[in-house]
């Protein structure tokens, strides 16, 4: 898609080769963070523009994907704060302590009910996670990043990433289970 020709500047070409190869990752992360394609596209656009302006601060040979996602995370958090969206209400503090397995082991121990759940509901459930859980879950479970990479992006100790991931996943699991119960996928 890139237009080759005499207009190619070395810096832009380097940015395209190193950074824009991660555009799909950026879009997928943005989509899960924002919950809709329109906001996701804006977030990707803002992220790429900021990254291009800061390209001289990127150290070649380091993890470019993590560098880009860090910029996206900061951009998203700032917008999120500005718009001061209401935080997700947490019903029970203990919701994360118990796996849904304990509730379904007699009826559906292999978790077949998950596959009855439509994509849109899963997207919504991810989007409804509090942001401190949502980002690690998206980076790990959608993008397959390691704990160390997520820790670098979020500027958190690996142990904190681990515990947020644990709690985020359990909340997501619980939410999908409640939805499946409501829809009659589990009896």
């Amino acid at each position: 898609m890139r237009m080759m020709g005499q207009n190619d500047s070395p810096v832009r070409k380097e940015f395209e080769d190193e950074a824009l190869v991660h555009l799909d990752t950026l879009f997928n992360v943005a989509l899960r963070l924002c919950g809709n394609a329109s906001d996701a596209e804006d977030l990707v656009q803002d992220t790429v523009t900021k990254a291009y302006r800061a390209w001289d601060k990127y150290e070649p040979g380091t993890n470019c994907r993590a560098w880009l996602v860090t910029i996206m995370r900061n951009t998203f958090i700032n917008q999120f704060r500005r718009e001061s969206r209401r935080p997700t209400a947490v019903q029970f503090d203990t919701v994360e302590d118990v796996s849904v397995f304990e509730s379904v082991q007699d009826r559906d121990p292999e978790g077949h009910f998950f596959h009855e759940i439509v994509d849109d509901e899963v997207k919504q459930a991810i989007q409804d996670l509090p942001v401190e859980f949502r980002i690690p879950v998206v980076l790990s479970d959608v993008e397959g990043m390691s704990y160390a990479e997520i820790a670098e992006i979020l500027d958190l100790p690996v142990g904190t990433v681990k515990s947020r991931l644990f709690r985020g996943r359990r909340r997501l699991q619980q939410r999908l289970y409640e939805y499946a119960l409501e829809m009659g996928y589990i009896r």
Partner: protein
Amino acid sequence: MSKAMPPPGGIDCCTVMQQLYEYIDGELDEQTVDQIRQHLEKCKRCMPRYDFEKAFLRFVGDQAHISAPPELRRKIFASLLEEEGNH
């Protein structure tokens, strides 16, 4: 299981459950991985829990991974050219 018997893999159920996500995510050292694998192979309590969590994570990970829309790509390339013009 008799109380005198060491737990399978030399690691107890509670510790296995605490590290289950790390095990699935491939975040543990080789020795711990071996211990947990041996435990899971023999433990009727932990194995179904492992299968369930794995199915859950696979399900979340299998959610459609989509390509950035061509229109967004086009806009981004256009904006980079514009940025370059501003330098």
